[in-house]
């Protein structure tokens, strides 16, 4: 089977433009035309704001880009703007997201639907500017919706989808769109830009149901004693859980617009698979190629791609993995002292958690050769990978912690 990742059926090839993931996000923002965009520079997010600033300078959108003094200020200003009743977005990465996290919790609790593009990058230390998911994992319990994209086109599409998900009255929460640092933010790929008017019509005009500066006076962010804090949290949890259904509805509507139907959890050649990997982000593309190669050799392998990470689609994951005997969950982040986050989420979703294999890969931008993913599939099929203990795919030549060879 030949996959043409950039060519959806019926799509006009002459509408293609070659842009990076960061530029894709900037184009989506230009089309959505949010009112306020407070932001602070950080690699590898900066091409997003640079491209957007140029669009603003060229008069292509009306966004107020506010160059604030830190990411903490960026998210704070974003909440102020969102609550005042205007559409607000921002972008960050790594240490910037870490600094933002305190305020993202507030955005979630004040129900501020701010879309944040995150150029996923390793956290210090040691300081490293390359892609992994450790920054996103730091924000995973904040109450925000989290999405992970695979390529530049998805970065563009998901920024549009995220806007509608965030602003849906059943959700009204911040949404983070994760695009792997450099692998997606800085890699140019063919992307079909949608017509501006259709994107604008798709997201619709912004209307915040309870604007702070609306006709009635109100209060946001007051103190909650033990008698009410718990209830507030319960409501936030319920709103986030609504995110799955809303994502599916928005995604279905988006399919009519763009010819792409994104699933919260996407099975790739899972039918009849005896071994599967569970992954998020850019390396799903690598894994799909590996799956195609192995399938053409007759090996029963597949991939489960997680696009919606929060809320975690537990029931779907459990159902899709139910009949697959050998499953490895690949985390591009670690949780020292226990098994890594995506693994734990998957383990909590399946009926046979003890059989799952946990693999940590790509930390700090470490390369992930296709041959290593193929090796993982072989290891799974031959049942020689240890279960329920984290293993490390470190790239050639060694793969485990002690620099021992592959388990044979």
């Amino acid at each position, binding site marked *: 089977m030949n996959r043409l990742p950039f060519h959806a059926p019926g799509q006009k090839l002459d509408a293609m433009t070659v842009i990076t993931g960061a530029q894709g996000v900037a184009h989506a923002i230009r089309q959505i035309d949010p009112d306020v965009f407070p*932001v*602070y*520079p*950080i*690699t590898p997010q*900066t*091409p997003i*704001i*640079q491209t957007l*600033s*140029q669009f*603003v*300078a060229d008069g292509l959108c009306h966004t107020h*880009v506010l*160059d604030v*003094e*830190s990411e903490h200020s960026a998210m704070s200003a974003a909440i102020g703007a969102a609550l005042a009743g205007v559409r607000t977005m921002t972008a960050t990465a790594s*240490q910037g997201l870490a*600094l933002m996290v305190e305020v993202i919790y507030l955005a979630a609790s004040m129900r501020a639907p701010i879309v944040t593009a995150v150029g996923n990058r390793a956290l*210090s230390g040691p*300081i490293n500017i390359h892609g992994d998911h450790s920054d996103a994992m730091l924000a995973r319990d904040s109450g925000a919706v989290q999405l992970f994209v695979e390529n530049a086109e998805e970065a563009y599409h998901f920024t549009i989808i995220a806007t509608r998900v965030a602003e849906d009255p059943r959700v009204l929460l911040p949404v983070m769109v994760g695009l792997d640092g450099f692998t997606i933010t800085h890699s140019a790929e063919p992307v079909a830009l949608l017509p501006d008017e259709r994107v604008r019509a798709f997201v619709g005009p912004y209307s915040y149901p309870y604007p702070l500066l609306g006709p009635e006076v109100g209060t946001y962010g007051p103190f909650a004693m033990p008698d009410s804090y718990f209830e507030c949290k319960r409501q936030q949890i319920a709103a986030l859980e609504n995110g799955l259904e809303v994502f599916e509805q928005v995604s279905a509507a988006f399919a009519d617009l763009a010819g792409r139907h994104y699933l919260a959890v996407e099975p790739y050649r899972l039918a009849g698979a005896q071994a599967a990997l569970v992954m998020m982000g850019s390396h799903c593309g690598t894994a799909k190629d590996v799956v195609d190669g192995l399938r053409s050799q007759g090996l029963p392998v597949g991939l489960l791609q997680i696009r919606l990470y929060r809320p975690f689609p537990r029931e779907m994951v459990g159902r899709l993995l139910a009949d697959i005997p050998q499953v490895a969950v690949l985390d591009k982040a670690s949780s020292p002292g226990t098994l890594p986050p995506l693994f734990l989420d998957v383990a909590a979703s399946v009926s046979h958690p003890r059989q799952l294999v946990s693999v940590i890969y790509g930390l700090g931008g470490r390369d992930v050769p296709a041959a290593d993913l193929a090796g993982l599939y072989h290891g799974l099929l031959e049942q020689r990978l240890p279960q329920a203990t984290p293993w490390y795919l470190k790239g050639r030549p060694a793969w485990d912690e002690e620099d021992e060879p592959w388990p044979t």
Partner: protein
Amino acid sequence: MNPGKALLRPDMMPHILCPGCGHGIVLNVLIRVLARRYASLDKVALVAGIGCSSRIVGYIDANTLHTTHGRALSFATGLKLARPDMTVIVVTGDGDGLGIGGNHLIHAARRNVDLTCILFNNETYGMTGGQLAPTTVTQAYTTTSPYGNRERAFDAALLATAAGATFVARGQAFRPDLLDDLLDQALDHRGFSFVDVMTDCTEYFGRKNALGGGSDLLFSQSRSDVEVTRDLNEWPQLQDPHGFAIRETLAMGVLHESDRPTLEAVMGLSGYRRGEG
């Protein structure tokens, strides 16, 4: 040859600075001063945040601490209070020290911790690609202000003075001799000393504002017979009689000096003494 060359870490070369970047001149002056003042750097610590300027501490063979964006002064305060006998120098940039870390600057000045803070002021965020900084002068172009900056720039020296710094000076990459003297005085000073060093980002600030290459940028730092205006934000209308941009319109030299007990002295920390060992 600069006698400070022996203080460099050869295994860290080549450095990351772009051709023509003013930071190299400041590094050159700094190691010259260090070599002259200290027989050994064992009791000297250099603490830095994040950015092109902060990167240079890695090139000097002293005790060096690389920290997070904007927080070098906080790390340095802890270091200094634990080892009051040491000379602690903070190397920071304008984005690092006045943007994300601006709060720490005013509090370090207020406490009058005996630190020397050297702020490389190139009016932009160099390392991340030349974005608008709190020191970018009004109307200047950066990658995030392609329409020209609409905000006002900080006067870093005035800020540090108002916050309580007991030694405040301003130098420039264009005048290594003056800078040498100012760094020397700053290290002599007992209390929080702050040196605002006007330097250049050729790669971004220079390019975006069509100021030419490294030597052109240095030249634009030179004083002319045009009156010193004391307001950074009048740039870029200012030109010398030959049509060259004049960027450094502010007063240079020691701008403020006062005597106030240091935090170490007030706390009665043992091992704290005046001057350098």
